[in-house]
């Protein structure tokens, strides 16, 4: 567990918290914790309570789905500076995917349960938090859609494909 003072510095330095007001900052510092995950450890488990979100400070996290009889399918990897987890603010507050550290991961975790209550009690605060998370969610959705496009495959997008034969 880090000191609140260090946590404050980390928050101040991160673009996710750009322009944050003092009240929310104090609140976030109060519900943040420094965590470390060894390779293979899970930050989130599919179907389990999603009570946290993470600001990854180092290492790589794989967001993945377990497939019986096969290796887990990695949907995307996330690294330094990225924000992981938004199920904590969407009922029923259950993680949709597994999030696994593929190497040693350092992260700040934030207590979503505590934050949820405060957001419900104080809509202005709730709006402030939401307006930081909606872009994260939108970005995630865009990336997923782009992945669906299969941008580099031969058969993708109706054949309008770049490869380095410009014609025949």
């Amino acid at each position, binding site marked *: 567990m880090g000191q609140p003072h260090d946590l404050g510095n980390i928050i101040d330095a991160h673009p996710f918290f750009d322009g944050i007001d003092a009240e929310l900052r104090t609140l976030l510092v109060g519900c943040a914790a420094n965590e470390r995950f060894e390779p293979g450890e899970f930050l989130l488990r599919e179907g389990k309570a999603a009570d946290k979100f993470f600001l990854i400070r180092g290492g*790589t996290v*794989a967001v993945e789905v377990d497939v019986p009889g096969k290796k887990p*399918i*990695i*949907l*995307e*990897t996330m*690294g*330094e*500076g*990225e924000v992981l987890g938004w199920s904590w603010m969407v009922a029923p507050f259950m993680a949709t995917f597994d999030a696994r550290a*593929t190497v040693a991961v350092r992260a700040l975790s934030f207590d979503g349960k505590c934050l949820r209550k405060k957001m419900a009690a104080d809509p202005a605060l709730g709006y402030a938090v939401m307006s930081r998370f909606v872009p994260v969610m939108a*970005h995630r959705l865009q*990336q997923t859609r*782009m*992945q669906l*496009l*299969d*941008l*580099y*495959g*031969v058969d*993708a*997008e109706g054949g*309008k*494909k*770049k*490869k*380095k*034969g*410009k*014609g*025949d």
Partner: protein
Amino acid sequence: MSAHAKDPMLPRPFRVEKVKRELSDTFTMELVPAEGGGFSFAAGQFNMLYVFGIGEVPISISGDPGEHERLVHTTRAVGKVSGALDALKVGDVIGVRGPYGIPWPVEAAFGRDLVFVAGGVGLAPLRPAIYQAMANRERFGKVMVLYGARTPEDILFKKEIERWRGRFDMDVAVTVDRATGKWGGNVGVVTNLVAKGGFDPQNTTAFVCGPEVMMRYAAQALEKKGVGRGSIFVSMERNMKCGVGLCGHCQWGTHFVCKDGPVFRYDSIADLFSIREL
């Protein structure tokens, strides 16, 4: 007529010196002029390659512009002519017309961070510019290669990327849409790598090459990051029959992709990207 010697439609014979399989459907050929002499080109230019009796196809040059002895092309076999190129053996002779087109403005990026964003086999037309940048390494700030491929098996120039990655003066990041096998690297689209940054957006020139849709999103991601439209360049692809602006096929709005491109500054074509079936 004496003008015959200058006929831009006549190919020059080149002999296949070496063929290297890159991916299941992609290969690299090294060619030397069959009648001697050298070959000069600028990074980003292409040639029309003619296979005897089969036809011609435009292919970007993937070799080092500092090398004048041999010509290097990396091609994906997707059609009649590229399939015939794939069937060539060492010693076979093909016809070459070129080099044609507007190159990557490598020298105009001196003094800046240089970011290469590649998708799939779009890495091939960028490679000459990467060579040129590394040959002039001291003239740039950061040199970054951000590369996205479908799966780890689709990564082009794998060994070379490993070598680049091992250099201290180059930042290389690779991501795949789908992790397979023992892949332990990034998973996600190449725009994610752009979003992570690591370059100074105000002082960055970006060269983007890949499928058109990928280039559109990569350019948007660069712009979102703060790179100006005038500092982003893309390499376009259209049907080409002549390569020199005479056949009309490659028209894209006001442009002939063969002679006004294939490399375009993003601000000059961004509007065209949003017009369907142009």
